[in-house]
């Protein structure tokens, strides 16, 4: 298989984490509120997810154990169950938001009624998840999501202030907005990067693809570094466009349509269409990420047969679970809740599942008795513990900041 196709798993997992429906609006709002000043928060998040996705991919490759297997084994039934419940709730909220997001972007493209398009979104997801092999899901939605690169072109066309942009990668106090709001956006950007379903999907995907040591360990590093790096790059591009176009005009982007203006203004109609198509692929890919993550988690926790590669007959409970999950997401969004608000809550509440997900990954990845010669080196351990600290800070501050800033409204 050629190299570009081999990193499809990392790209799809990263697109789910960095440029799903909520993150697209969140990254744009961060740029429109703080300019370039929060770019470092995305970098902080992406290094964390690269570190942990590399670890969980390595564990999946060496031990054939995806993340939830590891969580269940290392944390015991009680903590495992708590992780399962919290992560499934976040998965379901995110999935519902993505289904609504697919409908929103289709509406901007086609102008048809929203509720009908929610049904179209459901059918699209069902057909894609049922008929497409795992590798083709990765390729279609992962690479389709890369159309979002049009936001990078838009950012360049708008002529960024390179000095200020560079300074944005150095942490500092805000010159716009309040400190609380600044904290809320930092927590949101870091949480979005470290959403647990990315590692559930990524590690299960490594098993689905049958990665084997030692050959595929390099592929794992490539997927983790390049895939998630690309996701972060796209997220940063969205923030840069917003910093240049929306901040000077005092626009607070609350709608997907405003994000579309970010490419329409500098690039015209073709930019708009490419941007909306990129959002369509990214959000649909994120929906499949979360849908499968829900089924992976439940199956791995209860020890059922799982895997898209097994087909519906080989893994019937896994298949039934993702179908039910998708149906529940559809029903939630039919109640009329705003998908963007739902996913912002999901990002913040994911902090509950974060420590319970990432701690067991670190414990297993550094365990020489378990991983043998493939256990973490010193750098992996240092970064792993450092990021557990970051995750703890994010987990403790997320809900208070959500309340104090009225969900980032100031």
């Amino acid at each position, binding site marked *: 298989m050629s190299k570009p196709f081999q990193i499809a798993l990392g790209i799809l997992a990263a697109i789910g984490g960095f440029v799903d429906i909520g993150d697209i609006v969140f990254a744009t709002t961060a740029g429109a509120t703080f300019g370039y000043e929060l770019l470092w928060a995305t970098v902080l998040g992406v290094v964390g997810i690269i570190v942990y996705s590399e670890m969980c991919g390595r564990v999946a490759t060496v031990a054939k154990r995806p993340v939830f297997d590891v969580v269940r084994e290392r944390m015991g039934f009680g903590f495992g169950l708590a992780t399962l419940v919290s992560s499934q709730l976040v998965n379901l909220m995110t999935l519902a938001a993505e289904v609504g997001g697919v409908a929103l972007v289709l*509406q901007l493209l086609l*102008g048809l009624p929203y509720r009908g398009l929610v049904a179209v979104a459901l059918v699209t997801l069902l057909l894609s998840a049922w008929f497409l092999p795992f590798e083709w899901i990765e390729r279609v939605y992962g690479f389709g999501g890369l159309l979002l690169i049009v936001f990078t072109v838009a950012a360049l066309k708008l002529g960024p202030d390179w000095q200020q942009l560079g300074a944005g990668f150095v942490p500092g106090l805000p010159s716009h907005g309040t400190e609380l709001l600044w904290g809320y956006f930092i927590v949101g950007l870091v949480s979005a990067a470290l959403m647990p379903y990315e590692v559930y999907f990524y590690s299960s995907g490594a098993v689905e693809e049958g990665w084997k040591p030692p050959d595929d360990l390099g592929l794992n590093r490539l997927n983790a570094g390049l895939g998630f790096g690309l996701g972060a790059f796209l997220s940063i591009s969205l923030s840069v466009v917003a910093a240049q176009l929306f901040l000077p005009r*005092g*626009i607070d982007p609350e709608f997907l*349509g405003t994000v579309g*203006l970010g490419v*329409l203004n500098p690039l015209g109609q073709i930019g708009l269409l490419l941007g909306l198509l990129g959002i369509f692929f990214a959000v649909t890919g994120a929906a499949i990420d979360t849908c499968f993550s829900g089924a992976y988690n439940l199956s791995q926790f209860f020890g059922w047969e799982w895997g898209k590669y097994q087909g519906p007959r080989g893994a019937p409970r896994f298949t039934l679970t993702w179908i039910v999950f998708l149906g529940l997401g559809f029903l939630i969004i039919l109640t009329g809740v705003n998908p963007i608000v739902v996913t912002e809550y999901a990002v913040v509440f994911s902090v509950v599942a974060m420590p319970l997900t990432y701690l067991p990954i670190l414990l297993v990845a550094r365990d020489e008795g378990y991983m043998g010669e493939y256990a973490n080196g010193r750098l992996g351990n240092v970064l792993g513990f450092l990021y557990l600290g970051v995750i703890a800070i994010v987990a403790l501050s997320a809900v208070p900041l959500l309340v104090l800033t009225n*969900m980032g409204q100031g």
Partner: protein
Amino acid sequence: MLVLVAAVGVLSACKGGAMTPWRLQQDADSLASIAADGELLAGETAKGESTGPFTTVHARELRQEADQLADVVASTEPDPGLARPTAQLATTARAAARVLRRLEEHPGDEDVAARVGDRLGAIADRAEQIGKQA
């Protein structure tokens, strides 16, 4: 904790309550943002760059937001000295909604879009002025 967060979310979405200087500033900023967003959209539509569905759908989103803001502002009880700017803000938000409806209903008319853009630019300026009275 989740219940507390949900309660805060519900309360923050409620209408009415007191119109304080801080809230007037926030609501004026929101209206200025809606109007500036609409002005940008109208500008692209006037240049013939946007698509019909995109202009219609985004103008509708903004119009609904302006309508909702007008309802909420009009239902508040202003602090002393804020009655006039509060009423002005509600009226200006209604005007923004009316103008955005024209864009929503005529997404292919470049002349209408140009006029809507000018009007929304003026509304954004007006909202900023009202905010300064807070």
